[in-house]
Every structure is written in structure tokens, then in C-alpha cells.
């Protein structure tokens, strides 16, 4: 093409005589852009401003796509202008064959001009939607273009899209390519300040999408610069997106192919997360709204994964095929297509229109992925496992929600039939008692205040898992009923303001079984309805809605007088108070004791006995008690003290005296441990005597019970605590103790016997009833003791408490049978007394 071009003057638009028809057309075109910029670019704000840059950059990238350029340089200048330079062929210069002006002016001033609409020039064009660089020109205070072509430099300058003169040749150059510098026009655009980070993101994206393309960025305002070049293309993009993620397999899968001038490239990889990150591009345009290419990809991925999984039995357990979403869980993927004549639609032109792209991508990706799975069975297996996990979760959750939803909308008409609702409609005045068992539920229904108290009997389903014991679970029906009654819904439908009762009260039996059910319920609330346990009000305060009822364990009555006591400790305290009102104790070597002082000492004896009871799970409490009360044994003595034999004899004597009719065997054994018998002289394999252990076998119910008193136990927390308590109640003096009470005068051989005698004397004339379940109480009793707001005590449940219950639950639930049984045995008592 002839570079010189003086014949045609594109004209200064103001000069009347030169005003040609062509110029008018140009004026109309670019004036339209300036009058209605939003029709051509993405608004006059930040997005529109950067859109201008992309238009210019896309021209440069098009040169690269066509194989003519390899480098794009962007510079943001201090005066608010920006320049983009490529090393491509340079925009053609010289007379345009049909327009009566220079080709460069045609490109820069005519809308819908340029080579992109001629598929011959650019096989594939990323050019944005055809508005082209002329649009940028129209919206620029000035735009300068330099063309390095055929060893010559051509320059032209425009102001508001109008050429300020003719294209001039400014001398020879060794460069090739085009450089466009423009300053956005503040009279049309609201935003004129370029954002380096926004531009940087797009430049990096372009570098990923065009492997090998070198893009440099320099911000002269700040000195910042970036340099992007990715030989790996979108594979490198996927790797970047997956940074710091745990990957299912190390290298992204790369699928690419070409057909009839169209290119498809897909890179995909799964991480162990649950997010789906799929990005699609067509001709370098980020198709945020997708299009046929994305649909084609998803369809191919779903099809090949389901097919391979079927063949490898991966869906056997879940009994249905995974969904596309299951398959894309944890997937990071970039889909890039380059097709001739790409068209876009949508508000932000973010959707590809070309329908042929679907079949193209679907077939190409389908074929290649199928082969990939076949050729990489280890990776395929990991993907199938991941997908099956996702599907299993989805299916289980769906079933759960369906069950809840089947219960219907939360109007009173569809409330569960088992619920005995209250009359009050103001939730802040309403209480819901969740009661375990039908019989207790019946009592609660009769005993309640029906104005404000609703009752929901809950049936714990019993399953016979082993011969010796049943397991309990919450029937799914019960859970659904409970959720419906509470009214908040669940998960994404959860709304605390729909809570129908501001107090939800768990009422279970005061035994181990009841506490297990309570643990189950607490765990359910903690996990699934956390806000019911605690949610933050607008003023920042925490609000709690979950409570535990405190049904009494004992009823103590005498004639018409009755008293309910919540647990063993309360009963003990009551009987001690009663008993020490009249009792007088004379121990050996101390003054007579009575009243408060006696009560305090006896209370410590009770603490001692309770701890002894706990220790008894592992160590025979009779032996431990004898060791504490009859000997001076301690851990130190076991490590080779001369005092040991005498203490062992003392222990034997104490046990004989306390249990004269039981068989008794006491042994002292000494282990050897590796070590040198002479310090400093180590002999391989030499052993020295270690600490001793006392083994005691004592008859119990016709069998022998073995207990080992070793260093670990005697140095342990329980033993030293027992010792401390024992020291504290030594104020009682030595045995025997003479007790004078309402029941007469009796001798006690040890402190424990003494406490029991005091309690026994106190309970004379009283009837003590131990409740084994709520069902044993009649409605009136239940009301008086547990439900009457004026008299009851409720424990407010806090999240921290439940965190512990939940952990206990996890242990109770554990799959391994043995640890579970151990745990239950070890904590059976603790569970009963769990003070939440």
C-alpha cells in the first residue's frame, strides 16, 4: 500500500468549503458516540473508561492472535493519557480504496470500520463488539496514533475524534507496529482516572488466554509495572486460581482441539473445596453470562463423568447419577474458544451468541475427556470419589429438607398433631416443652399451663443393636415434627424471627438414658439450629432460647409435707441438715461435735465418698479406702522405701478388719526396668529394680476383685484429692464414733458408716421416693416441681456448654465399639450429673 497520501483531506470539520458528504457521515457517526456513549461503551463511569483501553488493547491482541505480534506494551502517563503499543503489522496507511480519505483516518474515525468484519484479514477477532478504536477516538480529548510500517513512521492526531491535520510521515524507523495514545475526554466521561489494578487483571487474563503473548504494563504515576507472559496459557490460569488449595490431582487436565478454523481450549482441575469456579471466554472476551460454548462444555463434562462412573461402579452406593453440580463441586476450570465471527449479547455483552459453539465444544471436549479418563484411571477414580461424595451429601440433605417441608407451611392448621399448642400467640410469652416419651408427655399435657405452655412429646426410636443393649436415636418423624413446631425452618430457610416459642425447654428423665436423649437433642440444636441456642440481637446482646428442665430425682414426704430434691447431692444435703439438728457425735480424741460444725465435717465425708464411688470404676473403693484410712501409703514409698513392708501389713490388717468374711490376697511385686546397677557403668541389657506395685484381690459377691495400687495411681489426682478430703474430716476424731440421735445411741466404725447412720436417723419417718422417670410423676407433681414458672429451676443452655455436650455426643456416637463402651462406663456417673 502506498504510504504517501496527500490527495484526500479528511478535513477539519469546521472548514465549510471542504465539507464533504463523507465528512458528514463521519460527523454523524462520532457525534452519535459522544451524544450517547452508553450505547457504545459500558457507561461513562469507571467501567466505560476501562472499556476504552480494552478496545485499543484488543486491536493489539488481534495482531498477536493473527500471529503478527508478540508484545503489547501499555503505559499510563502522568497527564492522564494512556498508550498501547504493539509490534504487529501496523494499521494500513494510504488512500482507502473506496472512501475518499486515508485508510488510517477511516480506521480511526469511522464506526464499524476496520478489518474485523472481513474474515480474510483476521481469521479470529477478539475485537470488542465491532465499535472499534473509532469509538475511543470519539471519546478522547485527543488521540495520537503512530504507525511503524515498512520502515517508516506515520503520525496523526485527533481531537474529539476529528483529525487535526493530515497523516504525516515523520521519518524512518526500525520498529513495526502501532502505538495509540489517548486522553479520555472529561466533558463526556465521568471517570477519567485509569485504575492500574483493574487494567492489570484484564491484561493478565489476556496473557493467560494467549499463550506466549508478552504484555507489559507501566504506570508512570506510581512507577508500578507488571509483566505477563504465560507459555502454559489457561493451564497456568487454573493453577493460579487453585493456589493454596488442596488438589485432587496435581496437574490440571488440558483439553484442546481445532476444527475448521475454530479453537477450543479447556483446563480443569478439582480441589477438595466445594466452590465451583468456571470461567468462560470467547475470542478473549470474558463471557460472564456464558453462552453456547459454556453449555457445551458442561454437558460434555457431565456426560463423560457419569458414563465413566457408571462403567466403574462409582455410583453404586448413591443409587442415582450425580448431577452436573455434584460434578462441578470443587472444580476450577477455564473454557476458552476462538471462533470466527463471534457475536455477543446481553447488557455487558458478556454472552456469546454463536450457537454452533455448543456442538463444537461438546464434541471436542466430550471425545477428549472420555479418552482422558480411560487413559488416567487413577486420576479418574479420585474425581469419581469426589463427585460421589458431593452427590451423597446432596441427596441426604435433599431428603431431610423434603421431610421437613412435607410437614407443610407453618400455619397452625398444619402443626404436627402430637403438639399440644398453647393459647397465647405472642412468642415471647410462649414456652415449648420437648418431652421424652409418651407417658411423660401425657402428664405434661395435663399438668401444664395451657395458656402459655405447649407440649411436644418426642419419641426416641429404640434399636436393638446388640443383645445386651438398645441404641436410641431420634426418629426422623420426630425431628421433622420438632422443626415444624419451633417454626424457624432450617438452613437457608431458617429465620429466628419466626421462632414460635421464646423458651424451648428440654425435659428428659433424670437418668443416664434421659441424659443421652438430652445430649442427642442438644447436639441437634447446636449443629442445626444454632441461633436458637444463641443469637445476637440488634443491640449486640446475646439471646438464648434453649433450656433444660430440672425434674426432681427424689420426693421426700412426711404426712402432708413433701419436698422435691433434684439429685443425690441435694438429698444428702437435706438429710444432713435434718440429721445434725439433733445428732451428737463423739469421736476418739476430740470434743463432742454437733450442729453446723458436725454438718460441715460430714459434708466432706460425703464428698469423699462420692469421689471414692467414681474411683471405684477402676480401683476397688474398699481397697482405696483402706489404703487411705489405715495406712500412710504414698507413691514415693513404692520406689524402694524401708517403710513399705509395714504399710502393706497395715493395709492387709485394715482390709481384714473391714471385710472379715472376704478372701484376701495382698502381693507386692517389683518390676525391673532397663538401667545400670552401678551408676555410670552401663551394661547392655542390664535391668534394675523399678517401683513396686501392690496387688490386692478381695472377695466381692462370691468372686475376686483385683486392684492394683501402683505409682501412677498413688501419685494421681484422685488419690491426692481423697487424701486431702480425708485430712479435712479428720476433725471428727478417730473411730469408733459414738452417735447420739433420735434413733438412740449407736457406734460407727468409720466416717462413712457414721454419715449413713446420721442420714438414716434423719430419714426416719420420712418417705423417700426416687423417680426413675418423668412418667412416675403425676401431672400435679410435674407442674409443681418442673413446670410452674414460679417454682421451677431452668438451666439456660449456652453454646459453650453444648460444645461439650456435642463432643461427648461425638464420642458416644463413635464408630468404634470399644472406645465407646469404655467411655460410657467411665463416664456413666458423670453423664448423670452432667451439669449443663
Amino acid at each position, binding site marked *: 500500500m502506498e504510504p504517501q497520501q496527500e490527495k484526500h483531506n479528511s478535513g477539519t470539520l469546521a472548514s465549510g468549503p471542504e465539507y464533504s458528504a463523507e465528512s458528514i457521515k463521519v460527523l454523524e457517526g462520532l457525534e452519535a458516540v459522544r451524544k450517547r456513549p452508553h450505547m457504545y461503551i459500558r457507561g461513562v463511569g469507571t467501567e466505560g473508561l476501562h472499556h476504552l483501553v480494552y478496545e485499543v488493547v484488543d486491536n493489539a491482541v488481534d495482531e498477536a492472535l493473527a500471529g503478527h505480534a508478540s508484545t503489547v506494551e501499555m503505559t499510563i502517563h502522568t497527564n492522564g493519557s494512556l498508550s498501547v503499543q504493539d509490534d504487529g503489522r501496523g494499521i494500513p496507511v494510504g488512500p482507502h480504496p473506496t472512501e475518499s480519505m486515508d485508510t488510517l483516518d477511516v480506521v480511526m474515525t469511522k464506526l464499524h470500520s476496520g478489518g474485523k468484519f472481513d474474515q480474510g484479514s483476521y481469521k479470529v477477532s477478539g475485537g470488542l463488539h465491532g465499535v472499534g478504536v473509532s469509538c475511543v477516538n470519539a471519546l478522547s480529548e485527543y488521540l495520537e496514533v503512530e504507525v511503524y510500517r515498512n520502515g517508516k513512521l506515520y503520525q496523526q492526531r485527533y481531537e474529539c475524534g476529528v483529525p487535526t491535520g493530515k497523516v504525516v510521515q515523520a521519518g524512518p524507523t526500525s520498529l513495526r507496529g502501532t502505538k495509540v495514545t489517548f486522553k479520555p475526554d472529561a466533558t463526556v466521561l465521568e471517570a477519567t482516572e485509569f485504575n492500574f489494578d483493574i487494567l492489570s487483571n484484564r491484561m493478565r487474563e489476556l496473557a493467560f488466554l494467549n499463550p506466549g503473548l508478552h504484555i507489559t504494563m507501566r504506570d508512570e504515576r506510581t512507577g508500578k509495572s507488571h509483566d505477563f507472559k504465560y507459555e502454559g496459557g489457561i493451564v497456568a490460569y487454573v493453577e493460579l486460581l487453585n493456589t493454596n488449595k488442596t488438589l485432587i490431582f496435581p496437574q490440571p487436565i488440558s483439553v484442546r482441539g481445532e476444527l475448521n478454523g475454530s479453537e477450543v481450549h479447556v483446563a480443569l482441575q478439582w480441589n477438595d473445596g466445594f466452590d465451583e469456579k468456571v470461567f468462560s471466554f470467547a475470542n478473549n472476551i470474558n463471557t460472564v453470562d456464558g453462552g453456547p460454548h459454556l453449555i457445551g462444555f458442561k454437558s460434555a463434562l457431565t456426560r463423560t463423568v457419569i458414563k465413566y462412573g457408571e462403567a466403574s461402579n462409582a455410583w453404586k452406593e448413591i443409587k442415582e447419577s450425580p448431577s452436573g453440580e455434584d460434578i462441578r463441586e470443587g472444580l476450577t476450570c477455564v473454557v476458552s474458544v476462538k471462533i470466527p465471527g463471534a457475536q455477543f449479547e446481553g447488557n455487558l455483552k458478556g454472552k456469546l451468541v454463536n450457537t454452533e459453539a455448543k456442538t463444537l465444544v461438546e464434541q471436542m471436549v466430550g471425545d477428549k475427556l472420555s479418552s482422558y479418563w480411560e487413559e488416567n484411571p487413577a486420576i479418574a477414580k479420585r474425581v469419581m470419589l469426589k463427585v460421589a461424595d458431593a452427590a451423597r451429601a446432596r441427596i441426604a440433605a435433599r431428603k431431610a429438607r423434603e421431610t421437613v417441608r412435607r410437614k407443610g407451611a407453618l400455619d397452625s392448621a398444619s402443626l404436627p398433631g402430637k403438639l399440644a399448642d398453647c393459647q397465647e400467640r405472642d412468642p415471647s410469652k410462649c414456652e415449648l416443652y420437648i418431652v421424652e416419651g409418651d407417658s411423660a408427655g401425657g402428664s405434661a399435657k395435663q399438668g401444664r399451663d395451657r395458656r402459655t405452655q405447649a407440649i411436644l412429646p418426642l419419641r426416641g426410636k429404640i434399636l436393638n443393636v446388640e443383645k445386651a443393649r438398645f441404641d436410641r436415636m431420634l426418629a426422623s418423624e420426630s425431628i421433622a415434627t420438632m422443626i415444624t413446631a419451633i417454626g424457624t425452618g432450617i438452613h437457608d430457610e431458617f429465620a429466628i424471627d419466626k421462632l414460635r416459642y421464646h423458651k424451648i425447654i428440654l425435659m428428659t428423665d433424670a437418668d443416664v438414658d434421659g441424659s443421652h436423649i438430652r445430649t442427642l437433642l442438644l447436639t441437634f440444636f447446636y449443629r442445626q439450629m444454632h441461633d436458637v441456642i444463641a443469637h445476637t440481637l440488634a443491640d449486640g446482646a446475646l439471646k438464648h432460647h434453649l433450656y433444660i428442665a430440672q425434674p426432681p430425682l427424689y420426693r421426700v414426704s412426711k404426712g402432708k409435707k413433701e419436698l422435691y430434691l433434684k439429685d443425690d447431692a441435694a438429698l444428702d444435703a437435706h438429710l444432713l441438715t435434718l440429721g445434725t439438728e439433733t445428732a451428737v457425735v463423739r469421736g476418739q480424741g476430740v470434743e463432742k461435735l454437733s450442729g453446723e460444725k458436725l454438718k460441715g465435717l460430714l459434708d466432706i465425708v460425703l464428698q469423699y465418698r*462420692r469421689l471414692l464411688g467414681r474411683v471405684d470404676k477402676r480401683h476397688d473403693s474398699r481397697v482405696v479406702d483402706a489404703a487411705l484410712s489405715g495406712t500412710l501409703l504414698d507413691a514415693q514409698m513404692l520406689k524402694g522405701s524401708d517403710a513399705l513392708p509395714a504399710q502393706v501389713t497395715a493395709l492387709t490388717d485394715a482390709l481384714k478388719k473391714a471385710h472379715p468374711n472376704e478372701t484376701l490376697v495382698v502381693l507386692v511385686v517389683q518390676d525391673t526396668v532397663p538401667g545400670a546397677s552401678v551408676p555410670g557403668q552401663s551394661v547392655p541389657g542390664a535391668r534394675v529394680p523399678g517401683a513396686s506395685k501392690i496387688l490386692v484381690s478381695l472377695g466381692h459377691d462370691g468372686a475376686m476383685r483385683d486392684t492394683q495400687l501402683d505409682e501412677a495411681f498413688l501419685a494421681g489426682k484422685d488419690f491426692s484429692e481423697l487424701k486431702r478430703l480425708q485430712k479435712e474430716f479428720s476433725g471428727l476424731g478417730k473411730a469408733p464414733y459414738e452417735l447420739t440421735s433420735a434413733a438412740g445411741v449407736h457406734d460407727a466404725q468409720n466416717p462413712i458408716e457414721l454419715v449413713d447412720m446420721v442420714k438414716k436417723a434423719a430419714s426416719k419417718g420420712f418417705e423417700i421416693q426416687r423417680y426413675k422417670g418423668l412418667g412416675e410423676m403425676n401431672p400435679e407433681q410435674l407442674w409443681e416441681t418442673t413446670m410452674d414458672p414460679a417454682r421451677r429451676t431452668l438451666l439456660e443452655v449456652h453454646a459453650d456448654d453444648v460444645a461439650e455436650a456435642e463432643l461427648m455426643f461425638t464420642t458416644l456416637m463413635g464408630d468404634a465399639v470399644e472406645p465407646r463402651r469404655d467411655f460410657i462406663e467411665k463416664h*456413666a456417673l458423670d453423664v448423670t*450429673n452432667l451439669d449443663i
Partner: protein
Amino acid sequence: MTDLRSDLHLASMTHCPSCKSEVKPRVENAAFPFCTERCRAVDLGRWFLGAYRVPGPPAPSDEQRPEPDEADEPER
């Protein structure tokens, strides 16, 4: 109770009950005590599938229900 509490503190509460991965604190995690809503959904599914059981009463052949703490059995 002391035994139980110390045992409980041995295990960390910062792990998701469903997938055992780390859990962000509740203030920044709507799915607490789970790591994600999906894990919470899986858990709900398990409740409904009856996967969660606790030890219940002994089988009928054992007529006597064991008292958890005989030492505390009161005098009548």
C-alpha cells in the same frame, strides 16, 4: 465431672463434625459449627437417615437397670 471436662478439652472443637476440616469461628461463619453449609446439610441428612444413635436402655433380658452410682444410693 472433672474427668469428663478434661477429656473433652483434649479434643479440639475447631473441626467440622461432617468433614473434620478446620472451622472458622461463628462470627465469620454462618455455617458454624460446620465449615460450610454443605457440611451442615450432610449432617441434617444423617439425622434424618437415623445415623446418630446413643446408647439406650439395656435389653429386656436384663431386668435390672444398672444404677450408675451405687455408692450414692440413699438409705431408705
